[in-house]
């Protein structure tokens, strides 16, 4: 992360869930207030698909089928986030990547030189194991830039609507 007098690039981690949409709404608000560009990234979890193929739980055709499904999910969510940003006049760049979710997100943060990472609410950890295996937890801990977890959906939705 390079030194800047004020944030210029905000990145939002998009997954196929409602928490990501709340995070995106908050990120749009931040981008507008701080006059930043917004970057939305979705990672198709190819690593898990490949692990399932290796474990022989998936057959090859099935793996390809699921990969296509996850890719379509990603495109749908990124398009929605794009619409949210454009509706408020925020410049947005979207990126659909494939690979290990944590590694790809961290690569994007570094490559983009993002100044802030915005993420949706994390799952409630039930054990120390969750801290090690949950993708969101790992991204939050390892990202080189400041990170924000967006928790409440209704106030954020109202904030976005009022923007």
């Amino acid at each position, binding site marked *: 992360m390079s030194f800047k007098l004020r944030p210029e690039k905000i990145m939002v981690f998009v997954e196929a869930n409602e928490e990501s949409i709340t995070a995106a709404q908050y990120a749009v608000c931040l981008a507008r207030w701080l006059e930043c560009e917004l970057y939305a990234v979705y990672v198709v979890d190819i690593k898990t698909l490949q692990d399932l193929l290796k474990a022989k*739980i998936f057959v090859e055709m*099935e793996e390809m089928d*699921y990969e296509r499904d996850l890719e379509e999910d990603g495109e749908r969510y990124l398009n929605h986030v794009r619409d949210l940003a454009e509706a408020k006049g925020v410049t947005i760049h979207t990126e659909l990547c494939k690979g290990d979710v944590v590694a790809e997100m961290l690569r994007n943060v570094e490559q983009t030189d993002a100044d802030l990472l915005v993420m949706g609410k994390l799952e409630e950890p039930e054990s120390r*194991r969750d801290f090690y295996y949950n993708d969101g937890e790992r991204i939050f801990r390892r990202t080189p830039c400041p990170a924000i977890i967006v928790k409440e959906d209704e106030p954020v939705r109202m904030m976005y609507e009022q923007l």
Partner: protein
Amino acid sequence: MKLSHLLTPSLIKVGIENNSKEQIIQELINIVAEEGLVTDADQAFMDVMARELQQSTGLEAGIAVPHGKSISVSDLVGALAISKEGIDFASLDGQPSHLFFLLIAPPTMSGPHVRALANIAKFSQNSRYRNMLTEAATPEEAFQIIKQAETEDV
């Protein structure tokens, strides 16, 4: 999705009455159907069997994971059947299968389906919990073993 979030004791059956692949899958589907989780049990059976015909989901180490996508469910559903004695499920290692995890997802819910399968794969690598689950005497005990396996520190 964690197995303990997907299963409840009422979705676990200890002791299997049948011994053919088709009958076991039917028995698993009956479990979710009795809980009102499928709208069309016949459709669910056909969808799971269609996947099974591509390649047996009888894996190694006594685990079988019959699964599939089906319009007969509106959410990801699962069931577990346990056979202490073991049943031939055309497994990859030729050994009898003891733990039968059924997963059925709606066609539009691939993400949670993939994560649940990955959690079963992770569970199946732990021989201690695998053996404990095979020996479980009741659905409640089986459920507690799954929860314990998921919360064990690394």
